[in-house]
């Protein structure tokens, strides 16, 4: 590197009990560079940036910032040096205003009026309009991310770390974000950009460092690479993308008609007249930005909330709206919720115990209330073997698995119950490319064998790749499903942004 690097890492090593998260990692970021950090889940990206931001501390190795030795003991030291970070999961208080949230994250106290003016100034300068007086609870996810970014920008960072920032945004919001980042980069602020969305990295970044198994395995200019070559560098193997095959549709398995329900969460979204139907062999995709009623729809479909939904949900022609999850499973409906730990699985329970959670009825683990632990264990073994779950044994706690492996286990647990209807939320959220491809193939295979599948996801590429039909949920309303391929990304983006009328009939929506 000819010019002086802004941040330089060399020999960074971090060990956790039983695993080396980072092994002699070294790279450098030039001023104004948009540097991508690319790697599968568990490759050590998060650990690495947490060390740069002072949340964790390296066991070995050194960092320099602007030529000076740099070893932040805590995030506030990193911020003082000029490092800002926007986390994947926001740390915002919904019941407070934008300005209050910004003030809480600042190291130096700033008074009210001053801060409001500053927020407006910075947010407008970077094309991120924000009203400082609004409650965060009333903001969309994209707007919440702006609060986080503005909070960082107010401290004049020289390096901005962004951890998977686009996973919650509509395509239009992504464009706005990228413009902001390019502007920052032009002003000399370096950006360390973590993502697994390869197209984005090719679009935005001018340098990429690839991590695998905690080590740097390559560095390249992503603009010179294809998405496929990047992915292969990342997982160290050749990829075969899922192929969509035309299947003959069977009878209608799941029908939801005019489902309306008020959310239990004060900041949740009420469902309005949601109707859909899924036939055997079909994969219906539901796209949408997070927090537009997906959770409420999922709750209603699983039956987690006691409700008067009778008549609105039909499973194989039978009304199940009043049934509890166990009864719905017995009738042939299985579910994969979005949250892996704490919802789809009990973190501190062994993998085999976690099969009892949702498979006890269909896999005859329970008889008259008594549990056949041997049957639970052999089913867990079967899931681990069939779905290639990397674990040192089914006696280990669910929380000891990496995100991708636990997701494979949970998806496998539901698929191997051979349900008539499978409802999946975020099947590959935070899952590495290899595991995601496995999960996609498994879902398509299941559909071919006559299961009706409903996939709720925020990942458009995923839905485009696997679903046969496609609808968008926004503010608790579901658009009319269209065959995949008949809608353009722009149209979908507008639907995700809440523009309902006319899209689908006319491609143009000037009033957006």
């Amino acid at each position, binding site marked *: 590197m000819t010019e002086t690097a802004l941040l330089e890492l060399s020999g960074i090593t971090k060990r*956790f*009990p*039983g695993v080396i998260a980072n092994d002699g990692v070294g790279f450098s970021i030039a001023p104004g560079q948009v540097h991508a950090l690319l790697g599968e889940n568990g490759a050590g990206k998060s650990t690495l940036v947490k060390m740069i931001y002072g949340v964790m*501390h390296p*066991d070995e190795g050194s960092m320099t910032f602007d030529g000076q*030795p740099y*070893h932040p*003991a805590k995030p506030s030291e990193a911020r003082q040096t000029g490092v800002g970070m926007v986390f994947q999961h926001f740390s915002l208080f919904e019941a407070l205003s934008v300005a209050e949230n910004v003030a809480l994250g600042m190291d130096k106290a700033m008074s009210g009026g001053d801060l409001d003016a500053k927020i407006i100034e910075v947010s407008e300068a970077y094309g991120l309009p924000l009203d400082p007086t609004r409650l965060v609870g009333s903001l969309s996810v994209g707007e919440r991310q702006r609060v986080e970014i503005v909070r960082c920008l107010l401290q004049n960072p020289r390096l901005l770390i962004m951890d998977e920032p686009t996973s919650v945004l509509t395509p239009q919001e992504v464009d706005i974000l990228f413009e902001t980042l390019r502007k920052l980069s032009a002003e000399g602020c370096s950006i360390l950009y973590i993502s697994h969305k390869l197209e984005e990295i090719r679009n935005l970044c001018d340098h990429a460092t690839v991590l695998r198994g905690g080590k740097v395995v390559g560095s390249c200019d992503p603009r010179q690479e294809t998405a496929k070559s990047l992915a292969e560098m990342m997982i160290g193997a050749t990829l075969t993308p899922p192929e969509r095959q035309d299947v003959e549709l069977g009878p209608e398995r799941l029908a939801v008609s005019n489902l309306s329900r008020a959310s239990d969460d004060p900041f949740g979204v009420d469902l309005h007249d949601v109707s859909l139907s899924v036939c055997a062999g079909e994969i219906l995709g539901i796209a949408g930005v997070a927090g537009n009623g997906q959770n409420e729809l999922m709750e209603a479909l*699983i*039956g*987690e909330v*006691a409700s008067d939904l009778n008549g609105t949900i039909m499973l194989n022609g039978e009304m199940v709206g009043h049934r*509890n*999850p*166990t*009864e719905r*499973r017995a009738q042939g409906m299985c*579910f994969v*919720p979005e*949250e892996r*730990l*704490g*919802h*789809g*699985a*009990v*973190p*501190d*329970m062994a993998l085999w*115990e976690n099969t*009892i*959670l*949702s498979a*006890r009825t269909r896999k005859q683990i*329970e008889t008259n*209330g*008594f*549990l056949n*632990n041997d049957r639970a264990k052999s089913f867990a073994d079967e899931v681990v073997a069939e779905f290639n779950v990397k674990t040192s044994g089914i006696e*280990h*706690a669910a*929380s*000891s698995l990496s995100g991708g492996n636990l997701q494979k286990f949970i998806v496998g647990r539901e698929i191997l119950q051979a349900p008539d209807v499978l409802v999946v939320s975020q099947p590959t959220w935070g899952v590495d490319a290899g595991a995601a491809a496995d999960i996609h193939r498994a879902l398509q295979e299941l559909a071919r064998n006559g299961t009706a599948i409903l996939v709720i996801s925020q990942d458009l590429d995923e839905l485009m790749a696997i679903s046969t039909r496609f609808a968008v949920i926004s503010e608790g309303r579901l658009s009319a499903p269209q065959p995949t391929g008949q809608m353009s990304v722009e149209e979908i983006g507008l639907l995700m942004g809440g523009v309902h009328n006319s899209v689908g009939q006319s491609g143009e929506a000037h009033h957006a």
Partner: protein
Amino acid sequence: MLRLEPRKEVSQPMLYATPVMAVALTIAAGMIMFLAMGEDPVRAISIIFFDPLFDSFSITEMVVKATPLILIAIGLSFGFRAGVWNIGAEGQFTIGAVTGGSVALIFWEVEGFWVLPLMSTAGILGGMAWAAIPAFLRTRFNANEILVSLMLTYVAILVLSVMTHGILRDPDGYNFPESRLFHDSATLPILIEGTRAHVGFIVALLVVATAWVLLARHIIGFQIKVMGQAPHAARFGGFLESRVVWLCLMISGGLAGLAGLFEAAGPVGQLVPSLPVGYGFTAIIVAFLGRLNPIGILFSGFVMALTYIGGESAQIEMNLPSAITGVFQGMLLFFLLGIDVLAKYRIRWARQYASMEKG
């Protein structure tokens, strides 16, 4: 610098080792305390913790004390696993003694093998009824069961007092506030002639075995564990929170009621206002010391009974205050809660980190 580092998984060996370490630390701290009091620490500790173990009468007395502790702690352990905090076992114990004891007095001098089972049933139902109040208030109005159950303890003790001063008072008892002595058919058979150890202990052993089966092999135990560890996952699994709350409070209330009746129909032999002596509260320590595990509770029930017997011996032989028992029980819980951190974390020396901060 010492640093706590989270373990990837809860350490199983530590789970078993920590209660033992807590007992050892309690003994060590007790010795320091006796030293400060000017007593011979070795002698005091051996009187409290070791001598009773080598005396056959003391062992049978331990069985007498351990029986109610184990019964109540087993019941509480279900709730504690599910995050249902019944702190009012003492009250349910008292009401169980009143309802079961009333049956004994109604059938006074009536002989029959059925009297004791009927009394036991009444005791269980009494405890359940008392626990139903916090269960209803929690599931209906989301009232905190800790406060409700604790407050009801004092109400229950007053109920017992009113009954023994009123309608249950012995008509031939010179106006003393106590009931008639229960007749033979209403008194628990003694296990070993000449001691106070009664068949209630056999029942406690059966309860331990049943609880073990329920927790390891039954959907009741499974849903209780899931509800306590991940309520959201419990809903996903099809378990209703309100059902678990009711279940836990009925199990713990019923067993506490049974323990109360056993106390009245066993060592005490009648209803007296001083019947509740704190077993319901001590059982909370027993449950945690036993790791909420039925077999563990069987052992910890005896450890706790030992502190009662040893505390009494220390009073008699060394003239130490009766507060000794409470002090040791308190220290035991304190050390157990403190040392518990080792199951989820490991202690590390963090030298590089410290030097980095300086540099």
